[in-house]
């Protein structure tokens, strides 16, 4: 299900991993078609697992947008060998975690365990991916659980604002376009188990599976366990490359009214037409960081620090891992400060767009990125996530090692040129979600 806390992105930047020479130290292999990367780090005992499979929401059939989610949701509801309680007991007994999450383009796999328990955890991941039980009773329960979780999300102003935004800037059929919640819930209601099984049969297989293991781990043992767990598994389908987002005839100024909310969430931006690895994409990201990364970015420095209009405001480039993504500002405002906050934000956006970034700002971002490259080396989760994202961006692992140099090579002209070329404030969509004065 779609639920991304974009606010966190403000302070994360690129989470670079734990070794200065990732490409050199990582062991990459293809096992039965599975793209496997294993990296041993200095951490003791802990192993983190990240994976992805092309079985995301956007691959649901046109007739029902909920099928991919339901398929992913059935993975932890028991297999043909073990019921869900037995699996939970096995995982729990060793304090491991395994979870699956369906996002726009992929089924995401997350796991964590102690080194000694890796064989068990990998075998369970394989079993859950390969042979879910598809019990009718569990399917009925899952439908109700998803309905409940979606209904609860409807209380969240951030969710509502982001949800309206992606439906406004991406056309129907684009992987980043979400169905409206009522449409999604209707899909959940009418879905049949046969539809879910058919989806699983079509998309679940080694062809698109990527697995990354990082931590206190012997690559040979990992390869051996993966070989055992996934032997004989076939299938999976590489999704077609979708067309880039074209123009959307959505209102430029939208309000999602929610009663009794003390804070209004704002999302403001547009589709960029850029995927992460495209020329200009890195320049646009660095320029975007000048506007809205951290406390020294222009948005926080002015809208928050000088004017006191918001607790948090940021700008970021998002959703561009698999396909062309979007550019957005996210912010929170009290209802009574909303218009003032938007005006202040607009001043910063206009000035940034019109005059571009300065030499000093670019220089600061370069050193900041170089430093965060080093600092970000600390966790297995951050490292595994970075490797997986790099693979999903169709980039080589050397990209991680070369990242600081690539940033350092950017010129002011490239950055400002990318901003001008790929953004247009006049075409951006502004969404406000909350108790907006005068909207009801």
């Amino acid at each position, binding site marked *: 299900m779609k639920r991304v806390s974009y606010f966190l992105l403000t302070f994360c930047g690129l989470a670079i991993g*734990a070794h200065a020479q990732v490409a050199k130290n990582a062991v990459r292999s293809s096992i039965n078609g599975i793209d496997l990367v294993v990296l041993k780090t200095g*951490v*003791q*005992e*802990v192993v983190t697992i990240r994976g992805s499979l092309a079985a995301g929401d956007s691959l649901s059939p046109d007739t029902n947008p909920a099928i991919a989610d339901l398929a992913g949701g059935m993975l932890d509801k028991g297999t043909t060998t073990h019921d869900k*309680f037995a*699996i*939970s007991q096995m995982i*729990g*007994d*060793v*304090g*491991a975690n395994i979870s699956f999450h369906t996002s726009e383009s992929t089924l995401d796999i997350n796991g*964590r365990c*102690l080194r000694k328990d890796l064989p068990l955890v990998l075998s369970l991941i394989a079993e859950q991916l390969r042979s879910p039980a598809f019990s009718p009773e569990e399917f009925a329960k899952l439908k*109700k*659980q998803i309905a*409940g979780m979606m*209904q*609860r999300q*409807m*209380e969240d102003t951030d969710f509502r604002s982001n949800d309206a935004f992606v439906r406004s800037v991406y056309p129907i059929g684009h992987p980043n376009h979400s169905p409206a919640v009522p449409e999604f819930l209707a899909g959940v209601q009418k879905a049949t188990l046969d539809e879910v099984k058919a989806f699983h049969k079509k998309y679940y297989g080694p062809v698109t599976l990527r697995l990354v293991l990082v931590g206190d781990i012997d690559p040979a043992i990992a390869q051996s366990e993966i070989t055992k767990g996934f032997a004989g598994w076939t299938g999976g389908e590489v999704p077609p490359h979708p067309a880039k987002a074209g123009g959307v005839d959505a*209102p*430029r*100024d*939208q*309000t*999602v*009214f*929610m*009663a*009794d909310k*003390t*804070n209004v969430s704002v999302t403001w931006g547009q589709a960029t037409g850029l995927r992460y690895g495209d020329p200009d994409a890195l320049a646009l990201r660095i320029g975007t960081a000048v506007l809205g990364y*951290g*406390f*020294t970015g222009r948005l926080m420095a002015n809208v*928050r620090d*000088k004017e*006191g*209009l918001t*607790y948090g405001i940021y700008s970021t480039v998002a959703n561009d891992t698999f396909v062309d993504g979007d550019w957005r500002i996210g912010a*929170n405002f*009290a209802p009574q*400060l909303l218009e003032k906050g938007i005006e202040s934000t607009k001043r910063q956006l206009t000035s940034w767009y019109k005059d571009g970034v300065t030499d000093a700002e670019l220089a*600061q971002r370069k*050193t*900041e990125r*170089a*430093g*965060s*490259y*080093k*600092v*970000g080396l*600390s966790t*297995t989760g*951050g490292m595994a996530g970075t490797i997986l994202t790099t693979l999903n961006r169709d980039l080589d692992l050397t990209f991680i090692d070369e990242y600081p140099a690539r940033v350092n090579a950017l010129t002011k002209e490239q950055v400002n040129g990318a901003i001008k070329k790929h953004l247009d404030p006049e075409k951006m969509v502004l969404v406000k979600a*909350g108790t907006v004065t005068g*909207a009801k």
Partner: protein
Amino acid sequence: MKLLRLLSAFLASVFLLAPAALRAADVPAPKLDGFTYVKTVGAISEYTLDSNGLTMLVLPEHSAPVVTFMVTYRVGSRNEVTGTTGATHLLEHLMFKGSTNFNDKQGNSVKQFLETVGGNYNATTYLDRTNYYAQIGNEHLAGYMAIEADRMRNLWLREDDRRPEMTVVRNEFEIGENDPTQALDKEIFAAAFQAHPYHHSTIGWRSDIEKVPIEKLRAFYDTFYWPDNATVSIIGDFEPAAAAALVKKYYGTYPRAPKPIPQVYTEEPEQSGPRRVIVQRAGELGVVGLSYKSPAGTHPDLPALNVLGNILSAGKTSRFYRSLTDKNLTTSVDASAGYFHDPSLFQIYANLAPGATHDQVEKIIIAEVDRLKKDGVTAAEVATAVGKLVAAEAYKRDGAFAVAGALNEDIAAGDWTLYYSIGDATKKVTAADVQRVANKYLDINQSVTGWFIPIVAAPEPTAPAAK
């Protein structure tokens, strides 16, 4: 900056020791000039700066060329009184507005420095402590420590900064109020604690946030921000002697607090019956919260309560999952013991599924609690819970930043060695211990039950649109 009231977190200590930790206690801690050695537990050594009583914890770990530096002040919202609720947190925000030697005007403020060197940094305020921290390349330790030390005693604290920052903090308050569970949690704490300052949340009451005068913030700063009320923790790739020399250089210039640090002496009177609160506002689905009085973080019963919480709510084999979530009555349930300096709450929060009623879910929770109190738990349940908790502690060791976060809560609870000792104690918890603490603490007469009742909004109007 971040405000935390973690509803579900067991913010306890790390107890699966890294190899470095296993051998560290056997290796004599180095003598450090100007410091008195106190003790070594696991891989962590404690020293006191002789000139002013500052506590220093060092944990060298050389797997990556980064270091985390953190200062923890032993002041939190428990130190506030009527009229100054939220002051600790507002002060934390104002700590980023500049000090005598490091500020925006000079281009070397804490945020300018850390965002230029790519540091990962923040500050948090909670019931018992305030902390400021950064993870940085080890070559930047001196630069960051100089700034951090300067703002310990040379903070500007200007009214011109308070005014705009007040609205920032008020917006943080408003964001929290947007969340039904957070709103309910504030009401539950307020009902549970009538005398003790855990009564109010760390963010404070709205009117106090808006109106607290700068003079009171100054007085607060001048009361609590002293070296003998602080602990600095250094974790990662550094040499203790060199780091200690920096601590001595930057913090050694300050004297001890001129007056004794005021201690909270208010104790919550015995509760004499169950209490209830209701929060009603627009929303989609209800929440039921049951909170029972529980002991302080240093109390020996805490490990058994942690195991109890795990048995009740962790994973699909837990009792609440089977009795509630698996029956489509809740979307999730969480049960956990507070980990604080003073007695707090063992809290159960159940998020209702569509169609479930508050009464129905509350009765099932109470029935499960009563069943556990009467029949106890199995040895297998305890073994599973302990296994999960032990592994969870190992995961908290994944990076110096995570270690600092856990250590911070141990310092706040009153004893940093809990970082290791809670783990040992958890491993010794028996089924009998769990049943005993359930009967001792899950007493309905010592509880507050809270309901969030959503008022379902009328159909939403069509959004006004302007192209």
